[in-house]
């Protein structure tokens, strides 16, 4: 037992540090995204509630909440690994990790798991606040969990890539605003892809965020634009592909070890 402890203590410590890092500023990393999601919920369900019915017998608020939860999970998983990396790179404190015997794989797993935890903490928080006001169905909880984990994992890996690539906060903000924001807003959180003209429907199908939102939503009320199994395959495939790219970059020491 002690031997196992020692073997895994390195990556476990890095994971713990990454968790504590966001928990220390939880007002900004957890409370703020929950607040934002609730504001979206309040405004959109007020404006569109009763006017838009995406699926038969599904009120707009019930349609909207899962999408908002998933969007927040994805954005926060991305923010966790990317901002931790860019900060420690700019501050120079990244060397404290680079000087240690931690392998590139352990580095990857620690950052990835911390991102998943942050995504799930934010997701659960929004869920618990939302069910105080609205009765939310929960038809396929395993789908919900699978999409939440795979989605936050994928964005956590994506965040590591962005954090390795960016050298300034400015570049990171550009990545966030020009890649992550459009992908999440154009993924069908606020509307169904089916309501779009055929051309934009096709474009939307190229957006991996669409599959994450659609599949996640299916877990709540059992309806979606496409099969949840197909979505899950796409999401897992993207997660694995991005993980390989990230691991490759870490192994090569991309912008970390010259």
């Amino acid at each position: 037992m002690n031997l196992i402890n020692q073997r895994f203590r390195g990556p476990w410590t890095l994971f713990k540090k990454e968790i504590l890092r966001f928990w220390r500023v939880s007002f900004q990393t957890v409370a703020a995204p929950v607040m934002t999601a609730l504001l979206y919920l309040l405004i959109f369900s007020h404006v569109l509630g009763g006017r838009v019915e995406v699926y038969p017998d599904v009120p707009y608020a019930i349609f909207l909440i899962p999408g908002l939860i998933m969007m927040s999970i994805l954005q926060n998983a991305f923010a966790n690994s990317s901002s931790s990396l860019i900060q420690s790179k700019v501050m120079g404190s990244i060397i404290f990790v680079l000087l240690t015997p931690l392998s590139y794989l352990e580095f990857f797993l620690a950052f990835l798991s911390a991102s998943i935890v942050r995504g799930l903490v934010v997701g659960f928080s929004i869920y618990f606040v939302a069910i105080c006001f609205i009765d939310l169905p929960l038809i396929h909880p395993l789908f919900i969990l699978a999409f939440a984990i795979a989605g936050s994992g994928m964005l956590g890996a994506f965040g590591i890539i962005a954090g390795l690539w960016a050298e300034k906060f400015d570049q990171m903000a550009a990545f966030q605003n020009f890649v992550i924001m459009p992908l999440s807003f154009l993924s069908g959180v606020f509307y169904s892809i089916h309501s779009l003209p055929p051309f934009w429907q096709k474009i939307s199908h190229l957006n991996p965020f669409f599959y994450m939102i659609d599949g996640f939503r299916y877990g709540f009320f059992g309806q979606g634009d496409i099969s949840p199994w197909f979505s899950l395959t796409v999401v897992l495939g993207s997660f694995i592909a991005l993980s390989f790219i990230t691991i490759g970059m870490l192994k090569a020491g991309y912008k970390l070890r010259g």
Partner: protein
Amino acid sequence: MTPAIKIEQVHKQFGALHALNCVDLTIEQGEFFALLGPNGAGKSTLINLLAGLLRPTSGNLSVMGFDVMAQYRQARRALGVVPQELVFDPFFNVREMLRFQAGYFGKGPENDAWIDEVIESLGLTDKVGTNMRRLSGGMKRRALIAQALVHKPPVIVLDEPTAGVDVELRYMLWEFIKRLNRDGHTIILTTHYLEEAEALCSRVALLKQGEVIALDSTKNLLASIPGKKLRLKLSAALPANLQDMVRHQEQHDYTLSLNVINQVEYVLAELRSANVVVEDMQLIEADLEDVFINLMGRHESN
């Protein structure tokens, strides 16, 4: 005995720049070693290669017999590095940061007593609960040294540990590093203060433009400079025929370099005939600075 550090035929290139050229260096266990050289000589590059922060273009480096690339886990466990810049993680206090650092090396609660010892000997006891961000420059420097020691590395590299540190702290750090060396740690120091290398280190390597231009014991290097220096405080300017001996001048305070001791007589005779009064006089032994200037100059003319 396995050498603490072995550097063989190491070459490091950044684009067109040859930062290190064919460096060979062996440092034995228990040595107190100085890496000297002007800015851009390759000192930090060499340290970063040892620490695995950079990868050599060619050649091999090992720490306690472990190759820094192939056996990086063992090599990094054997090495503690104090970086030059005052870097820190703003989210944590001193104790948390030290425990995390130990944890990365696989050390758990069993190591806490050692961490407390390091904290105490570096005078950080009052600051253990203080966030790294709130520490003064001197305290940050101490915390950085503590951070390099949490895993009890046999080899410790300090990259300009006393840069920007006040005199009191400098002497305290010197004592601390000397104690580490007495306790059996191998110490490698880079420094700009030649006085520091002279006071502490038993062996010195001099780097210039990526090459080791001198490698010898401090004693031998000092003996290689036969001359002494003559410091004079004069009533008027130095006569023109003595100007080429001037090493340093500040108003009427002059430092002259002497190749042989009986040049003193010549200097005094010249001063007397020029009617210049000697207000104060001191004869000084050569120091590492002279060795440094001498070798750098000689290398230049080659």
